[in-house]
């Protein structure tokens, strides 16, 4: 669905000759059909610029990209016809009602059955009863839903969502998340920029972390594994130094941390080695209460990756 190689965007500094801002640098991406792809990065990391390049809104200054089989820069109109985009702000005509807003965009996308498609998405997103109300009178959540409906009118196989739940109350955010899940069920490909790491963790099949250039891309689970390895949390009645020493002596253990009556153990192949770990602890006189998989939030993965980049940059 999306293939980018060395995608780069430099913006000239207007008024200052010879200076340029590097927004995106040498970005390689492959997004497969039916995938929910999370695009994470701090403010100014180049997320929106990347989306704009992939939606053929702005031209790359380097590299190449194909979207839905169309080459960016050569078949821009075909790209725009084949993707749906939810921009960071809903961008609706406040003085027009919901139906007129959607019908206008449906005409631009060349939708064949405009009333049918408009009705379908207004009903699907629970806006049918407010269809003749001005978009300006809608709540933030309703506006976001109307903007999502607009992005889907022409049934694009690929959808770009820029901060889909930003600024929404928890209930509205949940409706939007459930809808994204529903779209995944329909086999659509979703490219989602978000700062909500919990949302990315729940919805995305794979995640890319960028800061001008690509830092890492993988499934959330593999990102955790790459960063933290396999971890096990062993809760003991009381932790003694001999327990820690016994664990450290095991050949498959990479690291042991002690905290709050627990041992956080980083080890190879937990399925095979957990029984050996428990036996070693019992032999050292420990009273084992629980053994559970150590949880690392996507948030900690994200911050570690970003701080690694900061360190590399300052070095």
């Amino acid at each position, binding site marked *: 669905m999306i293939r980018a190689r060395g995608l780069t965007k430099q913006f000239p500094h207007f008024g200052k000759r010879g200076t340029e801002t590097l927004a995106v640098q040498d970005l390689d991406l492959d997004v497969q059909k039916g995938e929910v792809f999370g695009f994470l990065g701090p403010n100014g990391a180049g997320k929106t610029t990347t989306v704009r390049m992939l939606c053929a809104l*702005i031209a790359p200054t380097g590299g190449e990209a194909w979207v839905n089989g169309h080459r960016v820069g050569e078949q821009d*109109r*075909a790209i725009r016809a084949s993707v749906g985009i939810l921009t960071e702000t809903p961008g609706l*005509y406040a003085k027009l009602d919901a139906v007129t807003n959607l019908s206008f965009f449906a*005409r*631009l*996308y060349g939708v064949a059955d405009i009333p049918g498609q408009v009705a379908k998405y207004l009903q699907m997103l629970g806006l049918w009863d407010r269809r003749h109300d001005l978009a300006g009178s809608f709540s933030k959540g309703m506006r976001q839903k109307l*903007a999502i409906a607009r992005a889907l009118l022409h049934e694009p196989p690929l959808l770009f969502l820029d901060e889909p739940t930003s600024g929404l109350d928890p209930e509205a955010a949940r409706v939007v998340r459930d809808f994204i899940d529903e779209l995944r069920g329909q086999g659509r490909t979703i490219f989602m920029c978000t700062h909500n790491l919990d949302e990315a963790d729940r919805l995305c099949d794979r995640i890319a972390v960028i800061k001008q250039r690509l830092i890492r891309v993988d499934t959330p689970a593999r990102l955790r594994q790459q960063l933290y390895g396999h971890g096990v949390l062993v809760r003991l009645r009381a932790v003694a130094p001999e327990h820690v020493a016994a664990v450290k002596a095991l050949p498959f253990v990479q690291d042991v941390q002690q905290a709050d009556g627990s041992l956080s153990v980083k080890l190879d192949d937990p399925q095979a080695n957990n029984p050996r770990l428990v036996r070693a602890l019992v032999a050292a006189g420990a009273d084992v209460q629980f053994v559970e998989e150590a949880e690392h939030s996507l948030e900690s993965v994200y911050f570690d990756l970003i701080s690694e980049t900061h360190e590399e940059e300052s070095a």
Partner: protein
Amino acid sequence: MNVNWFCVWAVVGKEWAEIKRNKAILLMMALVPVLLVAMIVGTDYFMLRASAAGQDMDEDELPIPEQLQHLPQIEAFIIQMNEQYMFYLLLIPMTLPVYIAAHSIVGEKETRTLEPLLATPISTWELLVGKSIAAAAPPIVLTWISFAVLLAGLWFAATPAILFYTARDVWIVGMLLVSPLLALLSVMVGVIVSSRVNDPRAAQQIAGVFVVPLIGLSLVVLFGMVFINVSMVIYAAMVILIVDLVATYFAVKVFQRETILTRWK
């Protein structure tokens, strides 16, 4: 250039739907022509009545061009005044489109609708054409209607000679040819200025500069220095066309997808 007219008319339809809900624009579109036509017809009517009643109108103070000297003095005086008023009628396609275009573009900037709009398959050229038609067509039609209503009013309120001179080929060509060219110039100025400002009134004030030559020309006519003929109107139309082309070139330059998304603030 491949233009998808379906997209263009979709933009025109959307713009007009928004105009219908904008009371400020509707009021301006209604008031300006009504006041102008009422002023011209009313002035002609009361001056004729006053003259018939023997009141002194000081018409001797205005130099009458030789083309009108065969007419009774009061009629020649009124015709000369109407010549000046015709320029005011041309202010409708000069002032209203810039206001509508500026409102439209600044409105899109304020509501952040430009990005989703530019993300559709529409080309920037189609979008510009759609917005231009939407902003220019109502004032042009309004100018023509005002001219027709003015002639109808003069038929009732003035003399045949006054009606004849006001309805002569000069002003028919002027209204049909010059008003669309002025409207196009007005729209393009609206587009260029709107790319830099966030207030439609600011765009209108800047575009007000273009009204000055028109007012100046009207004064030249009023003081009898020139009596407009068809060839003058055609020459003027050619000059406006050249200015239009220059303005369109700059409007197209600022109205590019990437420029709009990254430089318009």
